[in-house]
């Protein structure tokens, strides 16, 4: 297993390099001169030339790419912000905890509420309760989260006045953002859990479990659910990975200085080094989370695990030969 984890981490390196090259290339073609952004339009030609020289902007694409990759992978540096002149990496690091709180609680809430709802719908499939809850969750999936956020602000902050509408001065400031973020997640997880469970619940091994005398509760939670978890974990992992990179829209609405807000500010300020750094950072965290999701699969499903462990692979093959003989 540890061999497999190592292999997966090694396989991730070329992808991360690819991501870096892609982003660097994209940013290379952004119209507009970064020096102009740094110095403002009033700078003299001589000043512009000196800064160009300093930043190495006179070099051809391939050399700049090389030094960028060297900086990134050997020194772990995302470079400096054009506008503020600060280190992009350090800025992202200070913002990370806020984004983490938002992402972590949103995904936990989505799973804790969504999975039981989906299971209940699946075990009562086609009942009135199921139909209503699936329609409501479809509305939840279709609701733009920024609009939901505004509606929550309107109700809880402006009308009732029980929760703050923006900022990040304490945990109560995160309640509305987490809710706005999680409701869509709850709805999505519930729908996926339902369809995944419906597929599994008709499997023969579920009948086998019933025939053994397993209680209905254990049939659902111990026999069916683990087999239905793979797509659910994929979805939650994807959501969590995406949100770790900043819930761009939510952070904007609630003025939470997280990573998503930084990205949007940088785009608006045409601070392309900061854009490049934050996009890279987000892609990296996303990749790491997706890797973790893959590893979780292996713990849940021995068939997936077997694909990664050499010796049992041979054994499966042997088994297949036997079955075919």
């Amino acid at each position, binding site marked *: 297993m540890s061999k497999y984890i190592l292999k997966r981490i090694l396989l991730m390196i070329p992808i991360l390099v690819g991501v870096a090259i892609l982003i660097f290339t994209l940013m290379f073609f952004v119209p507009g001169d970064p020096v102009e952004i740094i110095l403002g339009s009033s700078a003299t030609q001589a000043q512009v030339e000196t800064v160009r020289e300093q930043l190495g902007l006179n070099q051809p694409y391939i050399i700049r790419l090389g030094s960028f990759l060297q900086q990134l992978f050997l020194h772990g540096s995302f470079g400096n912000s054009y506008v503020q002149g600060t280190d992009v990496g350090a800025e992202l690091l200070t913002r990370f905890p806020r984004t983490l709180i938002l992402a972590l609680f949103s995904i936990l809430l989505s799973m804790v509420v969504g999975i039981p709802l989906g299971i209940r719908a699946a075990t009562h499939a086609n009942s009135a309760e199921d139909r209503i809850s699936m329609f409501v969750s479809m509305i939840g999936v279709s609701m733009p989260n920024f609009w939901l956020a505004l509606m929550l602000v309107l109700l809880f902050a402006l009308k009732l006045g029980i929760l703050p509408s923006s900022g990040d001065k304490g945990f109560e400031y995160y309640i509305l953002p987490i809710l706005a973020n999680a409701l869509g997640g709850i709805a999505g997880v519930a729908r996926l859990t339902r369809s995944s469970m419906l597929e599994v619940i008709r499997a*023969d091994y579920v*009948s086998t479990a019933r*025939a053994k*005398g397993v209680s209905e509760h254990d049939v659902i939670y111990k026999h069916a659910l683990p087999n239905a978890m793979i797509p659910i974990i994929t979805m939650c992992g994807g959501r969590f990975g995406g949100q770790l990179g900043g819930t761009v829209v939510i952070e904007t609405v609630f003025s939470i200085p997280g990573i998503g807000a930084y990205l949007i500010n940088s785009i608006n300020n045409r601070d392309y080094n900061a854009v490049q750094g934050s996009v890279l950072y987000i892609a990296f965290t996303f990749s790491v989370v997706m890797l973790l999701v893959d590893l979780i699969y292996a713990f*849940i499903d021995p068939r997936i695990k*077997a694909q990664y462990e050499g010796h049992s692979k041979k054994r499966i093959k042997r088994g297949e030969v036997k079955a075919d003989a």
Partner: protein
Amino acid sequence: MKNITEESKHFLSVQDMVVQYRSEGKVVMAVNGVSFDLDKGKTIGLVGETGAGKTSIAKAIMRILPDHSTYQNSGKVMLDQEDIMSIPEQEMRKLRGHKLSMIFQDPMTALNPVKSVAEQIAEAVRLHSDSNKVQAMKRAKDMLELVGISADRANEYPHQFSGGMKQRVVIAMALACDPMLLIADEPTTALDVTIQAQVLEMINALKEKLNTSMIMITHDLGVVAETCDTVAVIYAGQVIEYGAKEDIFDRPAHPYTVGLFKALPGMNKSSRRLSPIVGMPPDPTDLPSGCSFSPRCPYADDACKRDAVGMQEITPGHTCRCLKAPL
């Protein structure tokens, strides 16, 4: 009073079982009034084509019909003097896997892919005895050895076993709690011919050893010949012929049973061609009136198509649902 004494003669007595499903707005009449008896230590074969309702009978006895699509399920199942159709679900759950257990048709899908085989056997053991985890695992390993799987492989997962091995695991699981009644639903259909014989032999041997009664569900008359004492031929959800194995094999009375034997390739038969039963089994959502075999029956006349046909005694203990019988 008379009824009770009559019932008590048999270890298992199924009476007037009806199972109907609902599917896309239509009612599927899967089982239409099936009755049969089974004595302790004996084996009854339920023989019939795919879709005749055999598996529904088995699942109805186990009371594991799917909730969401089952429309109606009625009848009486007396097991050891107790009507298991009317006891509460909680009581029934204690019987399942303990007093009566079931082997499923397709070993490839009958085992939970995310649990080790020993875990799955041990689960049944723990549910029906007060043994602890260690004892249950010990029992599971013993059962695996009993069905010819080395205990070293106990912690492996279903995907690491071949089809025949999986079926052995399923059998070990079904027998782990010494059931009094074993329902084997086409236990060998999904297996290779060479493995089939091994598995059948093993089921027979274990059954003898544990003195278990068995319902053998199959479409294979060869399997019936090897394992059964009595036979019920099922067609369109009804028993159409019922009797001792010898009666059915030597003196088949119903045109369908006769057709089944004619369709069987034999080593010593001189005829070159097999004679198939013409036509298809009836649509269970739209059964024909009268005898449900009449559309395919070479002997059928208007009387056959008019009213439902009852069971008629041919010889004592050998009954048949045909106006023309014995042919």
